[in-house]
């Protein structure tokens, strides 16, 4: 089972690496959206510092929504998804591998980039660290929740918008505690409780999402 997992991760990561442009566009989208806010709100550093957690987190949420339909659609179009469904290995493990790979190529760069963007918003060093942690725990959860939506909307017209409509409400708890953690650490409070809850959500998502995604894929592909 672990071999399957490793194989799927390796395969998807290699495929994503061969088509770098798509991966980079998610990252640039994230950077651009965050950079737009000072232009829209004004360069007042005090204002920027207060809105920074929300802005970075909402941008991360949107960026991960945007990249969701890449998770299954290529494999769906060239027929390899059907082959994956036919493998004797449990589908949820295959799905988990695909989610992990998706996070590695879209979520991880975003997490690494976020502190740099935090500097633009004049976040103190402690808050930057919390931002990094909260995104590190939160973005995998977003990928996991999003996978269910991506599998449900597979091959539908206008799937990209639809998947956001389905998944965004479900992502609200992650957003609340992700942004809340950073905000707590800006105001000097401990972010521990927020981060623990984010971790708990990640664990719950890790338990249920691959399974639900596998069921959704079977519904979409039958």
């Amino acid at each position, binding site marked *: 089972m672990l071999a399957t997992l490793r194989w799927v991760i390796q395969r998807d990561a290699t495929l994503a690496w061969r088509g770098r442009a798509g991966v980079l566009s998610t990252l640039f989208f994230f950077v651009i959206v965050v950079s737009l806010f000072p232009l829209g709100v004004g360069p007042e550093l005090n204002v920027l510092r207060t809105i920074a957690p929300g802005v970075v987190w909402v941008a991360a949420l949107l960026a991960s929504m945007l990249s969701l339909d890449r998770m299954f659609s290529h494999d769906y179009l060239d027929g390899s998804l059907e082959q994956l469904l036919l493998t004797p290995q449990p589908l949820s493990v295959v799905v988990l591998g695909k989610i992990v790979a998706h996070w590695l190529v879209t979520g991880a760069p975003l997490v690494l980039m976020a502190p740099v963007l935090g500097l633009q918003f004049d976040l103190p060093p402690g808050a930057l660290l919390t931002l990094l942690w909260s995104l590190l725990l939160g973005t995998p959860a977003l990928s996991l929740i999003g996978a*269910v*939506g991506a599998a*449900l*909307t597979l091959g*539908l*017209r*206008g*799937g990209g918008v*639809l998947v956001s*409509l*389905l998944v*965004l*409400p*479900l992502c*609200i*708890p992650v957003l*609340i*505690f992700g942004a*809340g953690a950073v905000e*707590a650490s800006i105001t000097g409070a401990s972010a521990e409780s927020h981060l623990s*809850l984010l971790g708990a*959500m990640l664990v719950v998502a890790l338990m*249920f999402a691959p399974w*639900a995604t596998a*069921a*959704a894929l079977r*519904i*979409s592909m*039958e």
Partner: protein
Amino acid sequence: MARRKINWYKYTSPASFYPLAGKVIPFFAALAAVLLVVGLYLGFFVAPKDAVQGEAYRIIYIHVPAAWMAMFMYLLLAVYAALGLAFNARIWAMMAAAIAPTGAMFAFISLWTGALWGKPMWGTWWVWDARLTSTLILFFLYLGFISLQSAIEETRRADRAGALLAIVGAINVPIIYFSVQWWNTLHQGATLRLGRSASIAPVMLAALLIMIAAVWMYSIAVTLMRVRNIILERERHAPWVGELAGEVK
């Protein structure tokens, strides 16, 4: 143990559910109309003015039943969806599809009347109170369900995909509710409380209960009507629908 056994499975077939639904709809519709008139009359004309909130409080006779119904119908939607997935009978999925628009409507009504009520009470149309926010998210969940179902053309896939989404959503509802509550209390110390003083005049309570019953009856009637339409639409090639159409002609 039961002497007269009714074969309930019979009614999971759309062909036998259709006439049954047709028979009970007038009953529920009439009950809804009567209760609505009585409840609104009691609420708007008989019930005394609230000591603190004046006349404006009367909107709760619409607001509270709508909000309860919106929440309850999502649960019901998920239950029907789960039944549909588990037993693979079409009627459950049809019921789920028929419930969603009414649920969304009640969520919208409760938000709208809440705003109308908030303006004179709190001086603002909208506050980011935990309950308001979670009702808004509930409304979004309904919209997601409806748009997913209407985006998929093949009915079997639409039913099953919608069912899975409804179940995932129902698991998420408590998480969303508590996180929104946390988020709010973390932001501001004391939130505006929606709860009124503990005692409530008997006639107020009666009006409220009657309105809740009216909303229930209305929901049942409308859902059954919608499910009848869905049955006809999906089974239009079935012989019994052809016979029905022949009868009407």
